[in-house]
């Protein structure tokens, strides 16, 4: 009885342990299975939000892992599977946010800062050199 209760207890929580896809749930074709695993690592679990679908133990994540395999078996490409899930759960499910006008600042911000910083460094170095030539300390 205790064991049954304990199993129930574990199954109810976002516990931090390896659940994922095992045994009979795997796709028979190793190439397709590898695609499914790669996909579920790029998708976020909407229940246990710190984790990817690959890591999450939530029942919803298990359903989605199954769904990914169903779509792949049906002949969907990786992009089609992602679109299928985004249509249902929104952009939030993507670990890698899409590139669109609202995320330009997110994607190009780091590069912009690097360029501005680089330009500033060049300016400082050029001025330091000039100072050296003019003989001031």
């Amino acid at each position, binding site marked *: 009885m*205790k*064991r049954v209760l*304990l*199993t129930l*207890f*574990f*199954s109810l*929580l976002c*516990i*931090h*342990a*390896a*659940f*994922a*896809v*095992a*045994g*009979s749930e795997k796709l028979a074709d190793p190439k397709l299975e590898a695609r499914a695993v790669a996909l579920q690592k*790029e998708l*976020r679990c909407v229940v*246990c*939000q*710190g*984790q*990817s679908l*690959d*890591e999450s*133990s939530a029942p919803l994540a298990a359903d989605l892992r199954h769904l990914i395999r169903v779509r792949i078996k049906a002949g969907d490409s990786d992009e089609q599977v992602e679109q299928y899930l985004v249509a249902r759960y*929104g*952009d*939030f*499910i*993507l*670990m*890698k*946010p*899409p590139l669109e006008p*609202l*995320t330009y*600042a*997110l*994607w190009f*911000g*780091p*590069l912009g*800062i*690097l360029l501005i*910083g*680089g330009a*500033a*460094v060049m300016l*400082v*170095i050029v*001025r*330091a*050199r000039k*100072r*050296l030539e003019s003989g*001031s*300390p």
Partner: protein
Amino acid sequence: MTGEIGQLALALAFALSVVMAIAGLAGARETASPSRAIASSAAIGMFVFVALAFGALTYAFVTSDFSVLNVAQNSHTAKPMIYKITGVWGSHEGSMLLWVFVLAIYSLFIVFAQRGSARLTSAALGVQGLLACAFLLFILFTSNPFLRLDPMPFEGAGLNPLLQDPGLAMHPPMLYIGYVGLSAAFSYAAAALITGESNAAWARAARPFMLLAWIALTLGITLGSWWAYYVLGWGGFWFWDPVENAALMPWLIATALLHSALATERTGAFRSWTLLLAILGFSLSLIGTFLVRSGVLSSVHAFASDPTRGVYILAMLVAAIGGALALFAWRAPQLQGGTAFEPVSKESALLLNNVLLSAAAATVFIGTLYPLLLDAMTGQKISVGPPYFAITFAPIFVVLIALVPFGPRLGWRNGDWRAALRVLAPAFGIALVAVLAVLAFVTPRSLVAAMAFGLGLWTISAAGIDLAKRGDIRALPIGAFASALAHLGLGITLLGITGTTLWRSEALDLLKPGQTMPIAGYTLRLEGVQLLHGPNYLAERATVSVIANNRIIATMAPEKRAFPVEGQATAVTAIRTTGFSDLYLALGDQRGSGWVIRAYVSPLAPFIWFGGAFMALGGIASFWGRLRPRRVSEAKLAAAE
């Protein structure tokens, strides 16, 4: 009684922090030496009362005094003593008290170290007083750990089981020593701006505090990442979780600050930039505290969150950061700026280091806060995960690491790049051989992995050359020794990251007792799963035999624990390490008569934390060098030349 003593001590500490702030800032004027004495006494008094409050809370936890609400909510009589003590900072209220306690300790250091002029010290104490004032007010009105509970419950609610772990027990104090240590750098920088003594003296005065903060942040992040690795159960060590990022940003800026302050101290270069970094570093610490404590995020780390407190912290954030930046904008243009140096010189190298580190910090900042901002402004929910940082953060850091070996080899003002290249040629050779060897022998063949591995060896061998070239190790200036150690650690960590992320093998299967699964040359056989009783939990423990060459070489026992009091569960992974590679097992759930077992073989994984330890050692060496009388190292240097 203890609750009332703690409450009273906090109120008195608050009163003293007000005195400290006013007297300290007044003491920034040349003629106000009496108020400087008052500020010092107030700082000592504040330390005594905050320590008393902290002691009172610790006593309540140790004796399981459930008439104190905080103890009732976060402790339990069945908890082991060590976790009763660490439970003091396991809750939001307790961790804020720890924050102020560390702040009070640093203020005490500032009083007794008396680095820099009397005016500078006094102004720095004044700024520390302002910070203490704000945090004590926050504790007294929104997060009081001494609130009473009536009637007193018979038993406590327990502590989040994830926190009942030795790694995580030590993680918050380490991180806070780091976060709050940056407050000392911040206070000295603000003091320099207030008094106008913005020459090299303030950087020299603040250096030990910057170092202490950096060492603690390095160790805190290393501990946190190690904890995540063995507790979270999926073999990763860094998840780009907002709370991890909150600690990484101050570390990146503190690293930039240590390098920039070096130039400011030696040649007076980059004065205003170093001041700005000191302000930014602590600002990011405050933002980190805000992110973790305000409940603005929901992440794996968000244990203690309450949005109503967010507003107060946000106001404090705006006042502290805005005030400091305004002060900077007002006073910095008056600084005598500008040094002269050649484009190839240590100064240029330090500038590059700073721009790359700052851009890396900015990238983490954007990636962490963008989803929050977008959600607040448009309601659109996106998530920024590891793939984003792999594309944006990783390239910046790769360039940084590739350039690291040049810095120590270039002279001040005028560096000789040909000589630097000559000295570094063997390191380049080793790296090249490593790249080719990896491409030739390691499967699956990956150019990225080979380059990353080569880069790690490039940094490591350059650090080795640095130590060897300077001759007798006892004559080595401690600063060069320290930087070589820290750069060595960086290279070692990079090797670990490369092995763990690019060469990891993974296996997952449903095993019945007696069944086996293969992984990377090992065969794992599940022998059985037992039910166990811990002091305050129930556990299922699997026994797994590790078989190599038809011989059982080890028995491993991954575990799952259920904490009935807290209503939570944790995983206890089993890790078998050779120092060069980890075999890592986690126990999943039961399906019929079988169990899900997840296994990883992560080559070089332990290097990640070895590297962190080396970096911290580098910091400690530099700190020790600062405490030694300067002439000793100079005499040794002269003898070496």
